[in-house]
């Protein structure tokens, strides 16, 4: 799917006008928030998130070394490791592996990183059908849409919309809104595909450097099918998913599932440590691991921006974000929507393409409050705003690109007035005199709100008068 964060403003307006979408999201987010609250009390969350933050920071602080160790251990386990700097390189690597086994069909477990590189379209254009096997992904693929949430790809759809989709897209399926029936239909379609696919593709939740183990968290068993039934398994991951030791996994996993869906644990937790060994009855003959950078090493290079990479992709920030709740995931035009998307997408796509995302936040801090690895998202949003507006810090692609002489002049003038109380008082005095005349704010404000009217005489003006009175 093409990513178009440049269209954020139009797309968000469009989403706001869609009453059904807004109702779907409000309901879904409430459901997820309440479920999370039931399984996480404040004290436990506080101590566990401190631990998880420390784990991720320790692992990231030695990222290059851990990636090398991961490569060595994986290779020792028989996993073939590939490095991709760009989405294009990742796609080429995966396509070459598919070509190598004459594949024409692939089944895929849920993986946001393969959305990030646009793998389905790329493989499809080369004659490899790539079927999504996660039920949510299966639904959005059928609707020719990207996922609108990183954990629940089809959360923007109501049961009726999904029922219509099944009825229209799948042969011989009667219209039904019965969820169990719909899932049963989806399953039967997928079963046949699992059996005959040449390649299975998956993401990775944690890649353990110490042992060369790929951990995969899922609920439906489709991930296990994708990684064991086809003769070739290709795992794709961003480089930030590496952890140092096996013992790093349990605390992260424990907060991941509870933050994401409010589940104490998921139905499946797969630990993949290599292809089928002699004498084993199942498992793929080849396992490949594709490690993708795509801007991540730029984030890594700056100590503050590096915190972005602590993310374990639980989606709690979007579930609690008042902006995401109103506009849904598609409006962002990025693979990763919501608060985490606002801070990671500029690294993947550049500041110019994503210029509206860091400003589309009231900095309310709900995302930081629920983040299981304590990413200071509001602080990073402010950093990105500064990166784009000024040439002061400038380490990212597109830094300083948003500097406009006019806007900079306005802020310089504002700062000057604030430093000179006499000027500032004069301006507030004028504002008080002309209060019915001054077009304070752009018309966008006035659509839904009246103009805020300054008092006829400011506090300081009145205070001064009061003091000078005998």
């Amino acid at each position: 799917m093409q990513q178009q964060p440049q269209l954020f403003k139009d797309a968000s307006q469009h989403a706001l006008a869609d009453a059904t979408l807004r109702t779907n999201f409000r309901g879904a987010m409430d459901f997820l928030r309440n479920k999370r609250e039931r399984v996480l009390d404040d004290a436990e969350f506080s101590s566990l998130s401190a631990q998880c933050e420390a784990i991720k920071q320790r692992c990231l602080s030695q990222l290059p070394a851990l990636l090398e160790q991961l490569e060595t251990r994986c290779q020792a386990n028989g996993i073939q490791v590939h490095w991709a700097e760009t989405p294009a390189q990742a796609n080429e690597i995966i396509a070459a592996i598919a070509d190598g086994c004459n594949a024409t069909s692939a089944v895929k477990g849920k993986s946001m990183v393969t959305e990030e590189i646009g793998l389905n379209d790329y493989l499809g254009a080369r004659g490899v059908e790539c079927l999504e096997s996660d039920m949510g992904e299966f639904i959005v693929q059928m609707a020719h849409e990207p996922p609108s949430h990183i954990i629940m790809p089809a959360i923007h759809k109501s049961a009726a919309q999904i029922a219509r989709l099944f009825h229209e897209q799948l042969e011989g399926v009667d219209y039904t809104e019965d969820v169990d029936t719909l899932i049963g239909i989806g399953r039967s379609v997928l079963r046949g595909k699992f059996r005959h696919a040449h390649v299975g593709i998956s993401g990775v939740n944690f890649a353990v450097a110490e042992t060369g183990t790929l951990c995969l968290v899922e609920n439906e068993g489709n991930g296990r099918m994708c990684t064991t039934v086809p003769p070739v398994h290709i795992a794709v991951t961003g480089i930030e998913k590496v952890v140092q030791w096996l013992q790093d996994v349990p605390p992260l996993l424990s907060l991941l599932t509870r933050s994401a869906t409010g589940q104490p644990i998921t139905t499946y937790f797969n630990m993949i440590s290599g292809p089928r060994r002699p004498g084993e009855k199942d498992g793929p003959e080849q396992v490949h691991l594709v490690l993708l950078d795509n801007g991540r090493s730029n984030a890594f290079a700056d100590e503050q921006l590096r915190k972005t990479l602590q993310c374990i992709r639980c989606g709690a920030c979007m579930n609690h974000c008042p902006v995401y709740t109103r506009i849904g995931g598609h409006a962002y035009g990025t693979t990763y929507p919501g608060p985490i998307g606002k801070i990671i997408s500029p690294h993947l796509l550049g500041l110019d393409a994503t210029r509206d995302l860091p400003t589309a936040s009231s900095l309310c801090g709900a995302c930081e409050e629920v983040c299981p690895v304590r990413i200071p998202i509001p602080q990073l949003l402010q950093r990105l705003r500064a990166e784009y507006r000024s040439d002061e810090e400038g380490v990212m692609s597109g830094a300083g690109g948003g500097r406009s002489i006019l806007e900079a002049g306005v802020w310089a003038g504002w700062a000057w007035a604030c430093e000179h109380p006499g000027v500032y008082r004069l301006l507030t005095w004028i504002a008080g005199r002309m209060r019915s005349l001054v077009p304070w704010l752009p018309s966008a404000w006035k659509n839904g709100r009246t103009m805020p009217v300054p008092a006829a005489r400011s506090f300081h003006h009145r205070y001064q008068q009061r003091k000078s009175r005998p």
Partner: protein
Amino acid sequence: MHDSVKVYPAKPSRVYLYVTCLVDSFSPDTGFDAIALLEREGVAVDVVQGQTCCGQPAYNSGYRAEARKVAEAQMALFPEPWPIVILSGSCGGMMRKHYAELMPENVDVPAFSQRVYEFSEFLLHVLNVRLQDQGEATEITLHTSCAGRREMGIHEAGLALLAQLSRVTPIAHDYQSECCGFGGTFAVKHADISRAMAEDKTLHIAATGVQEFVSTDWGCMLNLNTTFEYQKASLRGRHLASFLAERTGLKRSSD
């Protein structure tokens, strides 16, 4: 997020009051009501004439150099070691939390930031006020600001003060912890998203059936009151200081 336990000092004899730019321009009464409440507790109040704005608008817009200049100018206005009481959790968060990020090299910032208190927090935890309710029975809902809640950790203070009023029943509204949609320049840059948030908030406040609501942040209040006004609804919010001053029999100060 606020992550340190705040240790409160003993009651001082004198404080600085930082009225904030929004109170200065849009609700001068709030400033006078706050002074009256502080003075009744025997605290002398100093309002420094040079104060303008804490620098937050520029900081949140990505103009750090400009924000820094303004922040330094403000810091210089409070030479005495008295507490600085601020009529906004948002400006308080700026001074207590963000000044350090903005000026990491300035060694005076930590001591300055420690002297910063949000108004309701100061009344409750430093002055230990005991409010005597003199009004008629009424119901009220409190909108807690996000900065007050998540940057300052003081959202409970407003509720605790309301709870001291014997004939006031605080009513919680749905999605109380959710943002009203203001966010400074966010409300202008992404006015439509902001408006959707404000409309939902006014809906939830109105659903409580209260006649009035209070907040400790004038930013949120501008957003909510102008939304109510646009809807031609009669509901309005005012600053907690004004509500407390009225309920406890302090005549509303005017000129």
